[in-house]
């Protein structure tokens, strides 16, 4: 199903942000209502399902005065639009800490907990909340303070965990949000909700919406890229799947291209021996010609998406090797990111790749780092995870900053929910676990027009309930779209009888307090 431009804003100037020689939407003199009607007629179900409409289609073709399949867009050209208003961010890098990092050890400093060590969590704080099956059978819920100290950093005086000595150096760039909350209590629905806005699989991811709304900055590279990272520790690891970066009901070209963490970044991208680039080009041209014939006869827009994928793959054959060739990086890069950045697939390598993609105009890069799901052995595991990710995270911010890219690059760090203040299982000062906690969790953002050095929202003394400025995931999404120039209520796509939006049907608000 192709994005319907008329859904987006029928009076928008349909200015696609894609290069190329073919006609672009600048060229369209066709009224929006006709386009909408035509697109509706063109979808497979309508077209093949009702022969009566086929006649109408032919009629419309004569109204348009040309073949309908060429009247709108060249096959494969993503249809995209200008934002509703001037955006602050051009691109985003989302450091996704899958498994849910504990807010208590990272960004939500609760000094009062030390005195509460091994005391029971007051019933009034829990407020009768139903616990997960993992801790509901526990005889008691003993409070576990963070074994890691916190120190204030920067002019803003952010309290930063001693787990993050590097990130602390750029504390003044960060806006820390301590009051995110969600409904989901288990990983898969929670990750789906924060990446796609819905606990149910099948919705487009944030990056897919941005690709749909904005198009590519660089035609040679995917608009939306996912990088998965090698894990420093392997325990309680949840699988990642392309549900988290799919295009859902949007056209498939808006889905992320996931670069692999080991071996070839993209499988089967290299031409086999004996196949030259010219031969490959000729082959793709041939297949495209057949696909276009098919499109002319059945009008299924999925065919155009397929053509686009072939073209993208062909372009990536040239652009990805250039992207992943780190041999020309100056020494200052390795000083900044550390030597581990030379090893493909590490979090450090991925952060460096994210900066390289930001430079080249990839809109949305999402880096996944897993195994933050610390039900047990939390102190040791979180120390390893922080050690692996702290320096690269700092390096990314610092690198974007010194290259003048941070102003219009939104960097986001966070997981899918929070963790409980009480210990799961036995509690020792240096060994305990924390269960899932959806009522509050912390994230931070930097660049892209958000405030610098701000701490937003507040939780109670147990980091259990939010006491000030709650931010729902929907609000978080609305705020991201706002930074890219979109009114989240107007960036929509008609599917299953609903104007589908990233923020769904429940009310969502842009958190203006976060914005510079």
């Amino acid at each position, binding site marked *: 199903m192709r994005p319907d431009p008329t859904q987006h804003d*029928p009076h928008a*100037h349909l*200015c696609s*942000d894609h290069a190329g020689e073919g006609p*672009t939407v600048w060229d369209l003199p066709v009224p929006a209502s006709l386009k909408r009607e035509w697109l509706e007629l063109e979808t497979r179900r309508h077209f093949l399902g009702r022969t009566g409409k086929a006649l109408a289609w032919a009629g419309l073709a004569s109204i348009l005065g040309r073949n309908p399949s060429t009247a709108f867009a060249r096959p494969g050209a993503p249809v995209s639009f200008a934002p*509703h208003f001037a955006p602050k961010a051009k691109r985003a890098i989302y450091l996704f800490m899958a498994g849910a990092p504990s807010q208590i050890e990272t960004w939500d400093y609760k000094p009062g907990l030390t005195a509460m060590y091994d005391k029971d969590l007051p019933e009034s704080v829990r407020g009768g909340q139903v616990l997960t099956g993992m801790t509901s059978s526990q005889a008691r819920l003993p409070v576990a303070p963070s074994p890691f100290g916190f120190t204030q950093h920067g002019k803003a005086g952010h309290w930063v965990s001693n787990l993050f000595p590097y990130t602390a150096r750029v504390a003044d760039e960060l806006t820390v949000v301590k009051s995110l909350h969600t409904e989901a209590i288990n990983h898969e629905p929670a990750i789906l909700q924060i990446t796609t806005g819905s606990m149910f699989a099948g919705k487009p991811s944030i990056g897919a919406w941005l690709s749909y709304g904005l198009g590519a900055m660089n035609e040679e590279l995917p608009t939306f890229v996912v990088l998965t990272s090698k894990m420093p520790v392997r325990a309680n690891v949840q699988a990642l799947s392309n549900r988290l970066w799919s295009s859902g009901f949007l056209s498939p070209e808006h889905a992320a291209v996931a670069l692999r963490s080991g071996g070839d970044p993209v499988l089967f991208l290299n031409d086999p021996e004996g196949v030259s680039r010219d031969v490959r080009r000729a082959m793709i041209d041939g297949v495209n010609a057949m696909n276009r014939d098919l499109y002319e006869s059945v009008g299924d827009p999925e065919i155009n998406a397929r053509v686009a994928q072939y073209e993208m793959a062909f372009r990536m054959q040239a652009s990805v090797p250039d992207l992943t060739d780190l041999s020309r990086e100056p020494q*200052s890069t390795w000083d900044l990111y550390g030597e581990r950045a030379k090893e493909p697939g590490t979090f450090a390598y991925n952060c460096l790749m994210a900066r390289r993609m930001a430079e080249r105009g990839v809109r949305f890069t999402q880096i996944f780092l897993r195994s933050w799901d610390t039900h047990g052995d939390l102190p040791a595991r979180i120390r390893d995870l922080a050690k692996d990710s702290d320096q690269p995270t700092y390096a990314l911010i610092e690198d974007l900053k*010194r290259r*003048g890219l941070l102003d219009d690059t939104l960097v986001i760090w966070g997981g899918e929910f929070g963790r409980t203040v009480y210990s799961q299982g036995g509690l020792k000062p240096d060994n305990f676990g924390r269960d899932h906690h959806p009522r509050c969790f912390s994230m931070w953002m930097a660049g892209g027009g958000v405030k610098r050095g701000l701490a937003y929202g507040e939780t109670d003394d147990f980091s259990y309930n939010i006491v000030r400025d709650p931010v729902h995931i929907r609000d978080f999404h609305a705020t991201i779209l706002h930074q890219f120039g979109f009114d989240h209520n107007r960036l929509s796509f008609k599917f299953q009888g609903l104007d589908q939006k990233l923020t769904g049907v429940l009310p969502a608000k842009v958190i203006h307090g976060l914005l510079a």
Partner: protein
Amino acid sequence: MSPSPEKPTSLPRAAENLYSRPRRLVTALLCLALVAGLSALPLLWPADGQERSSLAIFFGRLHPLFLHFPIALLAVVPLMEVCALFRRGRHLRASVGFILWLTVAGSLAATVLGWLLAWAGGYSGELVNNHMLGGCLLSLAVLLAALLRRQLVRRGPGSVGILYPVVLLAALGLLVWTAHQGGQLTHGERYLEEHMPNPLRRWLGLPERERKPARTPAAGAAEASVPGATPAPAAQPVSFFEERIMPAFDRTCVSCHNPNKTKGGLRMDGYEHLLVGGDSGPSIVAGDAARSELYRRITLPHDDEEFMPTDGKKPLTAEETEWIKQWINAGASPDAPLSELSGVAVLAAPKAAAPAANAGPQVPDYHPQLEAVRAWERAWGLRLVPVSQSGTDGLILRTASSPSRCTDEAIAALGALGDLIVDAELARSAVTDRALAEIAAWRHLRRLDLTQTAVTSRGVESLMKATGLRALNLTATAVEESALAPLRARVGLTVYAAPELGTK
């Protein structure tokens, strides 16, 4: 109430008497009930400006459909009566009764639907009340005329005397009065007189029409400079609001937002009413068009339910919308002079005058240049991308797909399009110092990215002319720090330069 058939006069009197007594009673009662009913509707459920159930509004909106039938029918009745006075038109007399009763039915239906529209459709005010009164009186007059005519036919001309033609003429008069008010409700109070020729105006005692209002500052100035031609207002500076905004509202909005028809509780017939606003709160937030309900409504997609003007009325022009935006953003003053505001107007003199508050000078709308934009894109394989859907947010020069195509020649070929560019993404492109001389002259350039290009300290000197620049990125270029000193000293400009970050 069935139309009574024309009875042959030969019917025996006794037989008529036999039936007429109870029938007359029924007729009288029915008429009384109608009178009571019609007067009760607007009295019990007046038009109070509230919107009610959409089903009621739906039926109410059939009012315009129904009302034209009784109008035409009623106009035809006297015509037929007059024709019937002559021998060749006599046969018409047989049909007049039928038509008159049809008029009665039609006007009753139109009246009830009209009340429904007024009650449910958010109308209020004197005009709509008068219109309703007129509609009720008209229905009653037509009913009376029909009854009188029946009497006339039955009892002969002597029975009702001159009453029938008098009532009929009164109904016609009421029709004209009521219909005119209906027209005013729909099209605005000055719909009819707006283009009325002056002799007719004088005759009707209306004020004479002014000359065509000055649409452009140039025209306004020219007019004022003509000696002797109404020099009165020249002494006082003309306010932007009165000269630009109010005429636009008058033409587009006031027909539904006035004291008589106050849709959504909003009046737009005066400055103070705009501030008070309507059911959705104040219509303007001085200084912030983006948060102003009025501006939001007029800039929605035209098929949006909330778009104004609604119901397919002619929308504000792009020019007027722009004026409104500027006027609100400049503080929405009722008496800021025309000259002051039009200085920042896109449409006024193209000379970039004093920059407005903090937004910098407004970029000219890119829409008129689309042809040129496309031609340049095709010629060079590069992109000029709109910052947003708003034409005056400018364009981004985007080269990321193939930066090597962006040469000095490509930049030179932009010509006047350069003034539309606010953001030039030239990282890794082939531009050199030569292009910088051109780029420095682009009047609205705010961000310039020259990362990893061949520009040198000499080229950067020419950027001193680019006074609107906010961010300059010279990462991984050979530009020396000494050449950057004057730029770094400039307030509001951030310079990024780190020669060591280049590739090996």
